[in-house]
């Protein structure tokens, strides 16, 4: 039995060309990297070979593996591969996510190297935590089981708690970490409780089984709230969603976000805001698709539709809240935290649209899968854009902090002409966050809005949500442009420290590499990424 298991893990005993461990390669590489770094410190190698090189190289290897897998997998005709006896799943969707995440990791590590945030002593710990959290996120991306869902969430969260508190000797940092861990743990507890309810009710925790079990459970029974099973199920789903809401900082589970982002270093903030959100969204898509299937009975479909609309409303509230609350911020990181909340709202609209379309459209009607896939595609595209624009904003905040020792917006005055590369980069990121063409943020927002509009054909409330989304674009302009205004329209005080960040420095090059993709390809050569995103999104539906 053990040999069978081993065999199953190592080879393609599931009848597929990809072995489980092979598919798990990038995660393994990262784990190996963690071990290597810790060993290196043990042996004192880190005094000669800076730890970040190990982190960078191992991540790069993992990335290469990911690329290899992606290419290989794209060549094959396989839609979905389950591995680790169905705990994990591999498809183009997760392959793409994996690529993106690893690339993001490379960027983050590079950023930390440039900005020098972990000092030499702490580097192994920091990078271990970073890569460990990434492993957790990778698990989230491929989770095919409620347990993996929980494990992924926790594995990504727990190292994050530590990273937030990494600015030693800073009150704010430790406070943020404590808040984060308590809040996170509480949310995780609620989520786990929800998972236990769902698993118990359905008698299964495997995603593909959930829909089938739901069918059998409610076969012949009314799926209305009068049915206690439904009440229990709803409670479970709600608690599950609370866990997601925490990860995504959706109102009213967002309270940790500003405090944590302000307390943590900008680099960590960037990592949290992009990677952890992306992973959560990817996982949410998977979860949603596990529950909401074309096979859902009409009653259940109605319930899901209501749920989807509810999520839409919450998304609208989140976006509005985030944008409004960002107005009165004076700290750049805190502002970006609220902006993160707002953008979670936008992206959650895509999820709402997905649920509404999935539950409300007549299964088998023309373009049923395609229309749902477009919602996911929009989300993916937005995540891709978000990757660059939000990391860019945090990175530039970090770089400016390194120069001016301040993260207060008022200290940015006149930077536009002293450090043009940083200011222009910041401008591109922020305007992309607003959603102005020809930057990627516009295209992403357009795709999401398109999906939301499309779902409006199912229920007009979604059009209202779209209108609020549009309005929010205008709201958001104010506080983003306030930063630009400070940088360009105000004079730098004579007493302020002059700074020079030339374009040909590492920082300059990094900013360029990070922000140019917003314009090209994400903003203009849209097809490049949108094609990939579309195929990835379609792969979620082909198998169902």
């Amino acid at each position: 039995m053990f040999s069978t298991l081993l065999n199953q893990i190592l080879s393609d005993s599931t009848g597929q060309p990809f072995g489980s461990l092979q598919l798990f390669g990038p995660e393994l590489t990262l784990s190996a990297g963690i071990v290597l770094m810790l060993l290196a410190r043990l042996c004192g190698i880190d005094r000669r070979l800076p730890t970040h090189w190990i982190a960078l190289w191992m991540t790069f290897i993992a990335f290469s593996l990911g690329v290899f897998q992606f290419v290989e997998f794209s060549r094959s005709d396989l839609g979905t591969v389950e591995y680790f006896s169905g705990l994990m799943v591999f498809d183009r969707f997760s392959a793409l996510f994996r690529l993106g995440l690893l690339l993001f990791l490379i960027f983050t590590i590079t950023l930390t190297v440039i900005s020098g945030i972990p000092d030499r002593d702490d580097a192994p710990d920091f990078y271990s935590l970073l890569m460990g959290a990434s492993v957790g996120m990778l698990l989230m991306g491929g989770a095919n089981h409620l347990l993996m869902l929980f494990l992924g969430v926790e594995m990504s969260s727990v190292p994050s708690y530590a990273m937030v508190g990494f600015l030693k000797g800073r009150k704010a940092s430790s406070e943020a970490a404590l808040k984060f861990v308590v809040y996170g743990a509480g949310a995780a507890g609620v989520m786990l409780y929800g998972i236990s309810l769902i698993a118990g009710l359905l008698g299964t925790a495997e995603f593909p089984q959930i829909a089938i079990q739901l069918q059998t459970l409610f076969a012949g029974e009314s799926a209305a709230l009068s049915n206690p099973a439904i009440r229990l199920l709803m409670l479970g789903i709600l608690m599950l969603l609370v866990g997601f809401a925490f990860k995504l900082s959706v109102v009213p589970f967002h309270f940790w976000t500003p405090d944590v982002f302000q307390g943590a270093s900008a680099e960590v903030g960037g990592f949290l805001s992009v990677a952890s959100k992306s992973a959560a969204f990817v996982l949410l898509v998977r979860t949603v698709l596990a529950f909401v299937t074309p096979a859902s009975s009409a009653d259940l479909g109605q319930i899901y539709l209501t749920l989807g609309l509810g999520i839409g409303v919450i998304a609208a509230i989140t976006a509005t809240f985030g944008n409004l609350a960002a107005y009165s911020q004076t700290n750049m990181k805190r502002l970006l935290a609220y902006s993160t909340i707002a953008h979670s709202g936008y992206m959650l609209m895509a999820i709402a649209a997905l649920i509404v379309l999935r539950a409300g459209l007549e299964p088998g009607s023309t373009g049923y899968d395609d229309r749902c896939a477009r919602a996911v595609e929009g989300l993916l595209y937005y995540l891709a854009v978000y990757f660059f624009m939000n990391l860019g904003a945090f990175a530039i905040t970090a770089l400016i902090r390194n120069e001016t020792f301040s993260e207060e917006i008022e200290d940015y005055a006149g930077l536009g002409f002293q450090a043009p590369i940083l200011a222009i980069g910041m401008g591109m990121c922020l305007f992309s966050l607003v959603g102005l063409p020809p930057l990627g943020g516009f295209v992403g927002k357009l795709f999401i809005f398109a999906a939301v509009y499309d779902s409006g054909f199912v229920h007009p409330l979604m059009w209202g949500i779209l209108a609020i989304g549009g309005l929010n674009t205008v709201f958001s302009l104010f506080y983003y442009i306030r930063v630009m205004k400070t940088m360009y329209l105000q004079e730098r005080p004579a007493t302020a420290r002059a700074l020079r960040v030339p374009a040909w420095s590492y920082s300059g090059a990094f900013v360029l590499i990070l922000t140019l993709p917003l314009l090209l390809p994400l903003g203009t050569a849209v097809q490049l990424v949108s094609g990939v995103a579309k195929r990835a999104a379609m792969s979620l539906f082909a198998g169902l």
Partner: protein
Amino acid sequence: MDTVGLNSYLLVAAMLFVCGVVCMAVKRNGIGILMGVELVLNGANLNLVAFARYTVLGLDGQVMALFVIVLAAAEAAIALAIALNFYNNHLTIDVDRGSELQG
């Protein structure tokens, strides 16, 4: 209600959960809050095990519970470390003292 059935377990688990949540909400001591977290997690664990026993969830539930226990341990470790850090900076473990970040 002669026999101890699934519902009894669930009830106990629910009580644990609620206790945990209340503990998290009202305790000022950081460690106390962490204990609340443990209560919540264990409530869920009890659920899982009970479901494993009484429903078709079977072994899955028990395995999940095991994993959760491990995770809880890891989480507790990190949380304690952070609490220690907090203590280092604030010379207290009273979470109410940490209100520098707000607004």
